[in-house]
């Protein structure tokens, strides 16, 4: 049985192709000059160049972190090109003007944009390499005062908003990768929901890394004003290159009084081949500030790709009665490594957080949950519930749980539950005896295991995630 299962695990990456679009690629290497080049290419205001240079100075003094449970050869940051943009200017007004080659790429990815627009009613801010190509539904959103555009555009058209919030949740010197991102980010998404507005549709961005050996430094900022609410979807795929690609994104969320931000991710970047060669290095800093009273920030992630995942979407619960949530499924197979989790920092009174983490490891992979629950001295009545479940497939994979709990307030209630299970031969035999083959069995078990997280995903994403997991894991039991 295990051979069949191994074959299934080792299915080639479906999204492995390179789009033949001419790219404008900067010289490799990082220096102050590179940063000035990026800034001038993008016609940025002076304050943003300063922001970048300050981050760069901080970064120079920082060391790459080594505390996580992942192992990889040192990344040569001078061998990366920090700017690549499709030669696609000026900006396009409608999808008809988009390069047909690009549209075909999206179709191969199974994300036909026009179809999404028409059928799903999803506004998609398309990121192709580092520059936004087309933004849909912008007018409709603009009618209710919502700004949803690329970061570059926001910098030029809404500089006061960007300047007010950029770097306020994740300071430029927060960590090695966030500092790097702050210095060299090329584009990303910006979303602003004004006071009292409930965003009428799911906002969605599809990222795609396209140019070989181009670092991806996306920057996303979402601000929900008083009483506003928004649900944001991020989905990713990347082509199958053999050389590793670094991805160091930064996502900042700000929720003011009574605001609600829901951020969902399905990540399926190239994970490397079955021997662990290649794959994306994904070092992401995501953090939300539940700044106002009664605000809520909810992260949902389904991490299936990347050779290395280093990611801890967190919530700073500053407003009284604010709520932070983290729902995660992390799947690793072959030689993938994931060290992912969250931080819930309780500062305000009666703040509540929920953590549900499901880690699935197959092949020779290593999957770690790392989470911090911190309750400050003023956080009276703070409550946290954490549940971390691991599932092992086969006997070569590893699962770890590293929960850190720091409580400085006696009225706080913190609960942590953890479990480890294994898909065994006996379960598979039970299914087989009922006519169900190993693929269908694993898919059913895994989907059952991840149910609590999938329920948090928006509908169309949930279906996608279910399929993705099936593809990643079917038959990986041996």
């Amino acid at each position, binding site marked *: 049985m295990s051979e069949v299962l191994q074959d299934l695990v080792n299915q080639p990456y479906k999204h492995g192709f390179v789009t033949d679009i001419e790219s404008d690629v900067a010289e490799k290497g990082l220096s102050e000059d590179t940063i000035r080049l990026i800034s001038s290419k993008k016609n940025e205001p002076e304050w943003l160049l300063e922001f970048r240079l300050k981050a760069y100075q901080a970064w120079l003094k920082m060391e790459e972190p080594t505390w996580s449970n992942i192992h990889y050869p040192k990344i040569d940051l001078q061998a990366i090109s920090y700017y690549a943009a499709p030669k696609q200017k000026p900006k396009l007004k409608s999808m008809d003007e988009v390069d047909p080659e690009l549209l075909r790429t999206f179709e191969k990815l199974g994300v036909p944009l026009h179809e999404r627009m028409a059928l799903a009613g999803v506004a998609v801010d398309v990121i192709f390499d580092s520059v936004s190509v087309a933004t849909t539904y912008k007018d409709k959103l603009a009618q209710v005062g919502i700004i949803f555009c690329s970061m570059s555009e926001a910098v030029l058209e809404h500089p006061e908003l960007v300047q007010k919030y950029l770097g306020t949740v994740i300071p430029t010197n927060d960590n090695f990768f966030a500092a790097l991102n702050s210095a060299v980010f090329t584009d990303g998404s910006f979303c602003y929901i004004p006071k009292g507005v409930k965003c009428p549709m799911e906002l969605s961005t599809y990222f795609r890394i396209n140019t070989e050996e181009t670092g991806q430094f996306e920057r996303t900022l979402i601000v929900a004003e008083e009483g506003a609410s928004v649900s944001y979807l991020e989905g990713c795929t990347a082509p199958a290159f053999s050389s590793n690609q670094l991805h160091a994104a930064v996502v900042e969320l700000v929720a003011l009084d009574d605001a609600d931000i829901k951020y969902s991710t399905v990540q399926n970047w190239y994970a490397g081949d079955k021997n662990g060669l290649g794959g994306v290095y994904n070092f992401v800093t995501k953090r939300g500030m539940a700044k106002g009273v009664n605000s809520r920030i909810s992260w949902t992630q389904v991490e299936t790709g990347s050779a290395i995942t280093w990611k801890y979407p967190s919530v700073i619960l500053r407003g009284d009665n604010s709520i932070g949530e983290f729902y995660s499924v992390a799947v690793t197979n072959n030689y993938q490594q994931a060290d992912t989790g969250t931080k819930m920092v309780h500062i305000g009174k009666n703040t509540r957080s929920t953590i549900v983490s499901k880690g699935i490891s197959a092949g020779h992979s290593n999957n770690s949950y790392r989470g911090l629950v911190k309750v400050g001295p003023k956080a009276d009545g703070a409550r946290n519930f954490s549940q971390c479940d691991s599932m092992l497939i086969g006997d070569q994979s590893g699962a770890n749980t590293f929960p850190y709990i720091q409580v400085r307030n006696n009225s706080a209630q913190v609960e942590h539950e953890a479990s480890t299970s294994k898909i065994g031969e006996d379960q598979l*035999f*039970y299914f*087989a005896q009922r*006519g169900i083959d190993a693929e269908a069995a694993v898919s059913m078990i895994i989907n*059952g295991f991840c*149910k609590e997280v999938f329920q948090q995903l928006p509908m169309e994403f949930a279906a996608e995630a279910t399929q993705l997991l099936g593809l990643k894991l079917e038959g990986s039991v041996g």
Partner: protein
Amino acid sequence: MINKDSKTILEVRGLHATVNGVEILKGLDLTVKSGEVHAIMGPNGSGKSTFAKVLAGHTAYEVTAGTAMFEGQNLFELTPEERARAGVFLAFQYPIEIPGVANSQFLRLTYNTVQAQRGNEELDPLEFDDFVREKMKLLEMSPNFLDRSVNEGFSGGEKKRNEILQMALLEPQLGVLDETDSGLDIDALSIVAHGVNELVNKNNAIVLVTHYQRLLNYIVPDFVHVVDNGRIIKTGDKELALELETRGYDWVGVEYQAANLAMATQGAA
């Protein structure tokens, strides 16, 4: 029941099987015809449960010699799932728990998988719900079984009912019940046995693997076989089971050895 126009459902000849290199089955022969109920009895470790698992194709067991023809097909050439789809059903002695998978979902998948194999219509969740609820009445199961995870937190009796429910859904040609009576109280035993009796007809057959005669008061066998040391050493009718209940198994072994000795002596003479 034994009838004249019955066809052979299962024919096992000279079956040898090992687990972890240890031989458990040592030349087992058995013929099962449609409409028949066979009881396989024997002491602990005699090989009766191994026989059930080998028929179903459990990967821990290796068939080293012998054949098993199921409705004209060589069973040992089929994967476990192919055997199940072809109509071999094993009611497990210890049904495994599958956390997170709703029973309703599991039951529908297995039902549709087998129906697809037979070229029948598959049922959507609503149609299936009506269908399965009807079948559950047979086993006096509460509908909330459907929402619970497969066997998770089920009592012994509930697990066994769930097994028979699956048999009722799949309507196999051959139902192999591996110690279905173990862990059942008298009420549950009667319900489960009633469920099994409802399923027996002239086109299918049942093999009951059991330790005790008790079950056979409820499901009356046409044949009772005694397994010892990996082979069938005596076959009789339901009266044999009663005799075993009073006398135990030892005398059968003694009788078998004496007969073998007599044959050997005759051969020598």
